[in-house]
């Protein structure tokens, strides 16, 4: 737990009063009250869809509230755009960076600093170097931003915002792209900034970060404020209850049991990607029946290529992939699927679903030629309907009917459609990428429970996730992917978050790691 700074009561810097924002079909913020004090780190905690980002976007001038008002230093604030917000001293770093990759760090920093006739970079360079020295960050001001690591890009983004001279910094899920060490580093510097007088609003759905960093926390649920508390007065469990509205299982139940034969064996595969980022460079792994192999890693280290190689969308230039007894190195996706491989892709909308199709059509996608659903090339509609109704019931998919257009469903239900489809064929290997990204806690719990059930049934599960808690919760063995290779595999009991983090960052080389 951290030191709580001395904050004079009543010294509110930014206040939202009864702020309401409505989007089609939903109230994103319903009479939200928020008071942020000068010089504190204030967390906005909530699940996906709780309205955190909407609220922040209102404070930053992206949206105008439909009702209610925002006060800065007691004065009503009327923002029409982020530019207004920056002039008022409020800056925000979004989750998706707004940087120009081919330009240098300095150039990115001075973009948008005003209509001067001549561009003078020397002042920017001086301040930038000062800033990096102050906070002990090592980035070359002349480096091309596109070549920096994601963590470094985040620093550029943060400094770009501070360069405008803001007093309040809003950060939207800043830790999503960082290794555990990167998170520690970020938090250290954020504390230093706070101590120097900056007010920080941090959006997150991770309880641990709230506890580790914040002075106070405001919890949102379904667009409403559940409450604001001093972080020192609460524990993770309390926050979880506030966030979800009920008690939450902090651990998934997972019984010990024996593993079977090797189902997936990948041997030294190489696969170059077009951009050079995310290539596979001699990756090997194996997964046995009845075990979950969790692959941790910062995104962009080859996860997508690995997924594509296993399901057969791309083929390695070198090395072999064997599923059970078959060599599927060069097999196309439908042949791979015939080996009993189910796949849940990382981007469920782009890779997993036909958003304009009906729910039932998505439930048979890929099986449209299977004997069960088609005779002589003609779809068996009665059987498809029966299967769809069965799946909807069995997987608790909330939809008005099987004929509903898929695009109208929520993220959790989309994932359930994919799970229902993929698990229906009684697979022997399941490869899942980011299975709970963007899902609320209930849906996430559901997906994790299903994966454990499949593992208990003897299925081999290859789980790739950037959520380390998820990896630790579910995995029987944990592997770390870094720069297209896996050089570290360990059982969760035999390793630690810190150790995994070092391998994720590529700090530790492969020496002596267990295979």
């Amino acid at each position, binding site marked *: 737990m951290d030191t709580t700074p001395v904050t004079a009561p009543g010294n509110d810097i930014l206040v939202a009063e009864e702020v309401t924002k409505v989007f089609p079909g939903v*109230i994103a913020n319903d009479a939200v009250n928020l008071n942020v004090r000068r010089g504190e780190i204030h967390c906005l905690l909530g699940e*996906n869809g709780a309205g955190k980002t909407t609220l922040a976007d209102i404070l930053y001038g992206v949206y105008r509230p439909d009702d209610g008002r925002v006060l800065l230093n007691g004065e009503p604030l009327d923002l029409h755009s982020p530019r207004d917000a920056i002039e008022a001293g409020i800056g925000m770093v979004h989750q998706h960076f707004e940087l120009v990759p081919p330009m240098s760090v300095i150039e990115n920093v001075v973009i948008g600093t005003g209509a001067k006739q001549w561009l003078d970079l020397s002042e920017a360079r001086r301040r930038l170097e000062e800033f990096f020295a102050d906070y002990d960050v090592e980035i070359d001001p002349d480096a091309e931003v596109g070549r920096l690591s994601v963590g470094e890009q985040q620093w550029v983004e943060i400094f770009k915002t501070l360069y405008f001279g803001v007093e309040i910094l809003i950060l939207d899920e800043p830790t999503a792209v960082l290794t555990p060490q990167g998170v520690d580093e970020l938090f250290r510097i954020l504390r230093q900034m706070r101590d120097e007088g900056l007010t920080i609003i941090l959006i997150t759905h991770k309880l641990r970060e709230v506890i580790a960093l914040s002075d106070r926390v405001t919890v949102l649920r379904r667009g409403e404020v559940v409450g604001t508390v001093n972080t020192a007065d609460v524990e993770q469990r309390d926050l979880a209850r506030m966030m979800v509205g009920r008690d939450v299982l902090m651990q998934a139940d997972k019984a010990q049991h024996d593993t079977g034969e090797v189902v997936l064996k990948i041997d030294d595969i190489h696969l170059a990607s077009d951009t050079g980022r995310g290539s596979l460079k001699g990756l090997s792994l194996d997964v046995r029946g009845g075990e979950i192999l969790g692959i941790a890693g910062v995104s962009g280290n080859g996860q997508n290529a690995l997924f594509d190689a296993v399901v057969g969308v791309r083929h390695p230039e070198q090395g072999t992939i064997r599923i059970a007894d078959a060599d599927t190195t060069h097999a196309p996706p439908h042949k791979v699927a015939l080996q009993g491989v189910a796949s849940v892709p990382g981007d469920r909308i782009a890779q997993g679903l036909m958003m304009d199709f009906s729910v039932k059509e998505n439930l048979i996608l890929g099986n449209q030629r299977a004997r069960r659903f088609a005779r002589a090339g*003609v779809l068996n509609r009665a059987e498809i309907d029966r299967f769809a109704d069965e799946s909807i019931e069995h997987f608790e998919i909330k939809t008005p009917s099987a004929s509903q257009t898929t695009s109208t469903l929520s993220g959790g*239900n989309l994932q359930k459609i994919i799970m229902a489809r993929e698990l229906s064929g009684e697979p022997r290997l399941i490869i899942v990428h980011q299975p709970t990204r963007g899902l609320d806690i209930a849906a996430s719990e559901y997906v994790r429970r299903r994966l454990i059930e499949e593992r208990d049934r003897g299925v081999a599960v290859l789980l790739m996730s950037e959520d380390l808690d998820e990896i630790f919760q579910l995995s029987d063995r944990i592997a770390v992917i870094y720069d297209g290779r896996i050089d570290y595999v360990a059982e969760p009991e035999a390793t630690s978050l810190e150790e995994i983090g070092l391998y994720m960052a590529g700090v530790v080389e492969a020496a002596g790691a267990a295979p």
Partner: protein
Amino acid sequence: MSDSGTSQQADEAAGSAGGSPPRGRDLRTALMQPDGWRLERRLEVRPTYELYATVIALAITAVLIGLLVLLVGVSPFDAFSSLYEGAFGDRESALETLVQSTPLILTGLAAAVAFRAGVWNIGGQGQFIAGAIGTFFVYDMFPGLPAPLLIVAMLVGAAVFGAIWATVASVLLVRYNTNEILTTVMLNFVIDYFLSWLLSGVWQASNTPYSQTERMAENTYLPRFFDDSRLHWGFAIALIAAAFVHFMMRRTSMGFEFRAIGVNKRAASYKGINTAVSIVAVMAVSGALAGLAGAGELLGLHHRINFEFGEQQIGFTGIIIALVARLHPVGVIAVAIAFAGLVNGATQMQISTGIPAALVTVIEGVALVLVLVAAVACRYRLRRGAVHADESAEGSE
């Protein structure tokens, strides 16, 4: 990395919190903005909305064309009624309209099938010509066949030639990733000149200075339905083709795959659909349909190919028809008949009101633009005042 940017956050919010009831606060918001209109995206676009939007677009087309006619100093009522008279006014003209619609239905279907699969076949015109060439080729090759068999063989030949011509473009697409819009358009020119070469060379009728083939034997004529009309079996073939297309797209595995690659090619390939095979297949079907249109015109009406054969630009009109019909096979039939009626009625209109028949092209163009606008517009709705967490979120958690 969780995926909620600013807009996604709104979407996500829309997805997960739809159940919360509207509150008093909304009422206050509504009172504060008594005249606030807002445009919002519909969560679901029902097919009926699309139908209404299309009908409204066509109505606006009529009004705009009426104004244009008024500008020339003719009563729109006179213009439209003479147009209608010429198109559907009596039995003779109505049947003639169906005659004109026959090839349009087929090239409209050809475009609709390909567009549904996200393949932009703009080569209907060339495949139409290829179909006519295929028909005559079979006629030329097998002079001894008995009539019924010969007709069937010629229709098959037309479909195959149309399909082959489309396949040239689709193979280039899947093999070398060439843009099919460009290749299909360019292939239209290639086949045009190829036909000219045939007509002035190997297929040129003897004893004539014209670039045309011999007149085909009478036993190759498609039978006519009535003694007093040119309406031939080609129209029935077109209707059967529409039924076939509808069945194929909605009820078969192959049609499912065609629609899948049209909606999301990436997800289709992840789920094991061979997109290259599907693209080649759908282009072949598309080309075969356009080819049949060529056979119908040749065997039902013209009975010889001459240099005017492709002048009506049947293939290009088919593209407009498919888009106005929103790619629905049944809609294609209706729109093709309506367009044929315009062409057919325009002569009558020109005679009785002096408005040039070329106005038809303007009508087609305006209708196309407005229907496309309507297709986008019906995804939104205009609401007054505050919005409530409303019925449209019924599908969410």
